[in-house]
Each structure stands twice: as C-alpha cells, then as structure tokens.
C-alpha cells in the first residue's frame, strides 16, 4: 500500500514506468460488473478555429443499470451544464453510465449547454440501449466554450468499442486535463472492492454538497 507520511517509510516512485506498474499491480483492477472505455478525437473549437484540439471521451458503465448511485456537486453559483443535469439525475431510478469529456467544461457556453449535454446523453444512451435520463454527463476544461456535440457523437462508436472489464486506468488517464499523472486508489473490503479515480491540478478547493 502506498504511504505518504513524514513519519513512515514512504513509497517513492522513480519513473513513470514504475508508477504505472504499481497502479496496474495494486489499484487498477475494476470491481465486478463494470466496463470502462475511452477514445480520443480531434476537433476544431468554434470559439478558437485557429486552435485545433483533441478531446478524450471516457465511459464508465455498470453492466446493468443500477439503483445504487449517488453524487455530490460544486456549490459554485455559476455551475456548468453537466452539474445542472447531474443534479436532476439524482432523482432518477437508475443510472446506466457516466460519460466524461475533457478539454471543454460546458460552462456558460453560448447556445445552450444543458441541451448539448442532454444531446450527448441521448446519443450515448442510444448506443448502450438505455434512456438518456440514465446517463450522467461530466465535463472539464475550458470555461465558456461550447461542447462539440457532433464530433462527440461521431466518436461514440469508437468509445463503445473500447469498453473493457479489466482496468480503470484508461478512465483515470482519459479524464485528465492539466494533470501530470493518473490518480487511482483502491481497497478490497467486505468481500468486494472499492476503486476510485480523480483528476484535478488547479482551481481546486472543492466545496461539494
């Protein structure tokens, strides 16, 4: 187990290869009943056509829609569209998947961020034989830009194709923005397993409720 204390011997990584080996051996195994996938595609932001960009989509999916889910969200008074949609999802009976994009946060974008997020959810649901209301959207990245909905939808077949049941590492890497490395922690407990991933390097003082 990785320790991080001034009082105990610390687990020190001396290279990225060593760190990834550690993640693969100790933390990346998915709990039973989940699939994870990711795909990257190029797009041209309409707000900055001179800056062709890459976006990564990450899909996290229980094998069957589940009643057992929860979430907390920022209390920032100018929340992104996925936050508004996500809060509504908490009252749904079941959750079927989580779709995450990096690069653009879909916050206060021209043209209707909520409808863009919903359109992406509907398209993901179509590929997974679910309802759009069973999809939780998440976005992170530039504030103020509009989600490139069509390129995202075009990338969904590749995303679904990438689903696998072994490792959460593609998701931990796929959600990164300015992060330098993926973050995964896990614990085996009560005959089962908990695995978590996170991203974030700046604009960090969460106050979620």
């Amino acid at each position, binding site marked *: 187990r*990785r320790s*991080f*204390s*001034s009082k105990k011997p*610390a687990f020190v*990584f001396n*290279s*990225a290869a*060593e*760190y990834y080996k550690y993640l693969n051996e100790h933390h990346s195994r998915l*709990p*039973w*009943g*989940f699939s994870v996938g990711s795909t990257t595609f190029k797009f041209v932001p309409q707000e900055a056509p001179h800056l062709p960009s890459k976006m990564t989509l990450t899909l*996290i999916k*229980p094998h069957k829609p*589940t009643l*057992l*889910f*929860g*979430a*907390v969200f*920022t209390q920032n008074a100018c*929340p*992104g569209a996925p*936050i508004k949609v*996500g809060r509504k999802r908490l009252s749904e009976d079941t959750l079927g998947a*989580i779709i*995450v994009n990096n690069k653009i*946060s879909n*916050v206060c974008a021209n043209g209707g961020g909520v409808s863009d997020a919903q359109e992406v959810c509907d398209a993901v649901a179509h590929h997974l034989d679910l309802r759009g209301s069973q999809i939780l959207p*998440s976005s*992170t990245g*530039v*504030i103020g830009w509009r989600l490139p909905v069509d390129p995202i939808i075009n990338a969904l077949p590749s995303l679904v194709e990438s689903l696998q049941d072994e490792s959460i590492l593609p998701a931990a890497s796929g*959600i990164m*923005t300015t*992060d330098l*490395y993926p973050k995964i*922690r896990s*614990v085996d*407990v*009560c*005959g*089962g397993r*908990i*695995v*978590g*991933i*996170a*991203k*974030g*390097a*700046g*604009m*960090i*003082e*969460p*106050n*979620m409720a």
Partner: protein
Amino acid sequence: TMLSYILTDLSVPRETLRQLLAEVVEETYNAMSVDTDESTSDTLAIVSSDQIPFDMSQLEQFRAALYEVCSGLCEDIVRNGEGAHHVMRVKVKGAESHAQAKGIGKSIVNSPLLKCAVAGNDPNVGRLVMAVGKYMGKHHKGVNVSETMTISMGGLRIFEFGEFTLNGDVEKELVAHMKKAQLTETTRGGVDHTSRDYPPHDQMVEIEVDLGLGTASAQVLGIDLTHEYVAINADYRS
C-alpha cells in the same frame, strides 16, 4: 476542476451510499485546497454495480475503506497541484466544533503568505498565528485563542500559550523539515519535477494546532505557492 468517480461491486443501499458519501466528502475532498478556487464543475459520483451482497453490520468497515480511497485520491490531487513544491497537512484539534477546526485548517493552507513561506523553506511561523487569529477574529469574535493554543510544525513545538518557543536550533530544524518535504530540480537525479509524469512528494510539511477550546478536530491538505504556479496560470491560454 476536480472530478472523481468511485466504483464498488458491493450492494450498499442507495440512501446509505449517499449518506456515507456526504460524510466522507466533508472530511476529504471538502478539506483540501490547492489554490482556494472552487470550480464551476467539481463532481464526485459513486456507483455500485450491485454484484456482491452487503451486510449492514459491516458498514463501518465499508465507511473506513471509502474514506481510505477518497483521502488517498485527495493526497494524489494535492501532490499534483499546479506548481507544488511542498504539500502541507494541517491537523487542528481542541476545537469547539468540526467546522471551526476545518475553518482554521483552511485559513492556514489558504494563506498566501504562509504558502510563500513554505515555498521558501522560511521558518516565518508568525504567519501561522496570523492565519489562526484571522479566522477566529472573523468567525468567533471575543475568543482569545492565543492564550490557549499550541502550534507545532514537523513535531516541533513552536508556539504555546501566547508566546513563540523558537530559538536558532528550532528554526534550523524547521527549515530542515520543510526542505525534506520539498521538491527541487536537483533531487532525484535532477528531474524537472514540475513536468514529471508520476507522483512526486513522499513527505509533507506537517502542521498541528491545538486550540485548547474543546474536543473537535479536522485535517486539511494544501500546497505551497510558487513561481511555477504563477507561470503556469499566467501563461495558460484557452
């Protein structure tokens, strides 16, 4: 922005899962700060695939495991904080309430002057007292905490009952403690730690405050404020 997703195969009931999540988030994700800025998009979701029956008598074990996962991820986030050379862990105890303990911890890790002192390995611990007093003056007027509190850094007592307990030797030890927790260009074979693609920091700057007012406690994580943080964010373009 902070995004996090927690997956489990244990069939923990929905309301229990949500209650536990709220409790653990308050002690972990809501108790860290890289740069004092709350994102418009912070999200943490927890999902169970409902595969393995869960015995409610094991709730405390599950809670402890969830805490371990979440607190570990928070450590990873602050270690990756933009421009971070030092990570700080502030433990506040002897508070009248958890909110007071956490508020003081946040006041310390969010103080620009204290963050800069840590960045420079400067034993300017007067800034620590300032950060405690600033919070108390705003939120608990009339409590003269300087008469009741003690402060330690790196296990060294530096303030107690209204007076600093510093001398040249203690200051040298404080500097040594901060340097031990610092990343530099010359450690680990001269690697540029600001762009390293694996976790740095195997040690933290440890600060402990005992307010001597009550029994509540909290732990908060933060980082120093460096030239690199300013460079990264001043040079950042959409």
